[in-house]
């Protein structure tokens, strides 16, 4: 169960003057159970890339394989792909529409053609999984807070029982606590439910704290594909792409410039604390 991109290119408006290459020869493999961070400037091709993962877009050239099968194949069932790879868009709460939370979460599995009992069981499990209290199940989703609505929207995707969950900027517009709650939920889905996670984010701090591997996109090309530590070593390149490195990494660089013998490939707060205490011999 893996996702393979093999020399994937995607162009918009081919055969016209306006032809733009949104993806240029992108190749990588995501294995079962990984937690991957995807970062890139606005317009770098992140969203185009993500939409290839569940067949909303197909490559102009090259292939995308899911579970060993080419998704561009005529016989390939895109419906099955979409139940396996769940996509949570930016501001997913804008897509809520039903009168109650529970009905909204039922919508996905209902469309898979499942029996009513199974649909409701899945909706129940999904809402439990995102930590929604039972007394809120029959409330209107529109009366809820931003963070709660977002949980309902994520539950709607989880009810499809995807094996891969792709989240596009899931914390945008949330307050710091709401942001931490959503990230902890994603971590739980990864650690306990063994769902493969692809987290698209602008926040280097979030990605550094949660992802095991980072893909960096720039102008349609995959520039880096490595561990957070190795990716954040490329401070200058990342800044030129309009990206930033985690704040604590900046501190380590500043200490190094001030003459301290510190390692600069540190990207999380606990690591930075340990390293600074070390140079101070504590």
């Amino acid at each position, binding site marked *: 169960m893996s996702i393979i991109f093999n020399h994937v290119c995607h162009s918009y408006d081919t055969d016209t003057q306006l032809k733009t290459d949104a993806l240029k020869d992108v190749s990588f493999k995501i294995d079962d159970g990984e937690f991957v961070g995807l970062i890139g400037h606005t317009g770098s091709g992140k969203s185009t890339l993500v939409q290839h993962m569940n067949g909303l877009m197909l490559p102009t050239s090259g292939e995308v394989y899911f579970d060993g099968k080419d998704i561009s194949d005529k016989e390939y069932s895109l419906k099955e792909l979409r139940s396996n790879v769940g996509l949570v868009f930016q501001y997913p709460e804008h897509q809520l529409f039903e009168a109650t939370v529970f009905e909204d979460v039922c919508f996905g599995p209902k469309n898979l053609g499942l029996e009513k009992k199974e649909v409701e069981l899945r909706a129940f499990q999904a809402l439990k999984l995102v930590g929604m209290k039972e007394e809120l199940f029959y409330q209107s989703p529109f009366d809820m807070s931003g963070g709660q609505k977002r949980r309902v929207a994520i539950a709607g995707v989880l009810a499809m029982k995807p094996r891969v969950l792709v989240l596009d900027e899931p914390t945008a517009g949330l307050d710091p606590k709401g942001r931490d709650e959503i990230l902890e939920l994603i971590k739980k889905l990864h650690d306990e439910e063994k769902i493969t996670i692809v987290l698209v984010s*602008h926040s280097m701090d979030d990605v550094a704290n949660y992802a095991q591997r980072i893909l960096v996109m720039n102008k349609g090309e995959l520039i880096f594909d490595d561990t957070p530590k190795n990716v954040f070593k490329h401070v200058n390149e990342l800044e030129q792409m309009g990206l930033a490195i985690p704040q*604590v990494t900046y501190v380590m660089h500043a200490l190094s410039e001030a003459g301290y013998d510190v390692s600069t490939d540190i990207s999380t707060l606990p690591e930075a604390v340990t390293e600074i205490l070390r140079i101070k011999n504590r």
Partner: protein
Amino acid sequence: MSLIKSEKLTFEYIRRDEEGNVEGITRAVDEVDLDIQQGQFIAILGHNGSGKSTLAKHINAILYPTEGSVWVDGMNTREEKKVWDIRQTAGMVFQNPDNQIIGQVVEEDVGFGPENLGVPTNEIWSRVEESLKTVGMWEYRKHSPNKLSGGQKQRVSIAGVIAMHPKCIVLDEPTAMLDPSGRYEVIRAARALNDVEKMTVILITHYMEEVIFADRVLVMDSGKVVMQGTPREVFSQVEKLKELRLDVPQVTLLAYELKKKGLNIPDGILTTKELVNAINNCR
């Protein structure tokens, strides 16, 4: 004289069920006293639903207080005939750039505000030029706003407000939908307005890093102002901010953790430079 002043400003929403019966009352803003001087840079923090935006909407008379009063440049927002003067004094920029741009060309969009104020044509063009230059978007004046990035659109929105020559600009989470470089552009434009143009800026945000330059930070919770002070004073209280569902800048948090581990580092470190100096100075 203070530019924006409020006394016991309270705002209540009446919740109704489907038949229109009153279900209850939510107090979104609860007896807030504000006193903002001309030329200050004020930041307002608070978790989702703490009443920040409701408070902000009182500053240019989109909402009126249920109890208490708000004065903008000496005008009470309750005086209906002053509404346009108030909105000309305090302009507002919202979160989503796509909801605020109406022109087909950048310069037309920016000219829309002054045009509606009845400013003479020549004067409109000079205001458009000066506003676009202030936010660094002059070279895009002939572009279609649709083709701009989020940060650029937001700067055009800001130019549209400053072309009306307000004394104060309220930015309600202007960077929430932007990427890091877009955020940087917008904050830089906001700071320039304050530093160079001496305009009063009120910035509402969830990004703690954006408020470290403010003159004063207000923290809201359940409609009340629960903390206020300089960024240093506010961010020294890490635990209290966490209770309020907020954060401190990562650098401040790192300094705080180091201090807990016994390093002799002062409270309320705000920048990388300050932290490096503090580490240098501790034995």
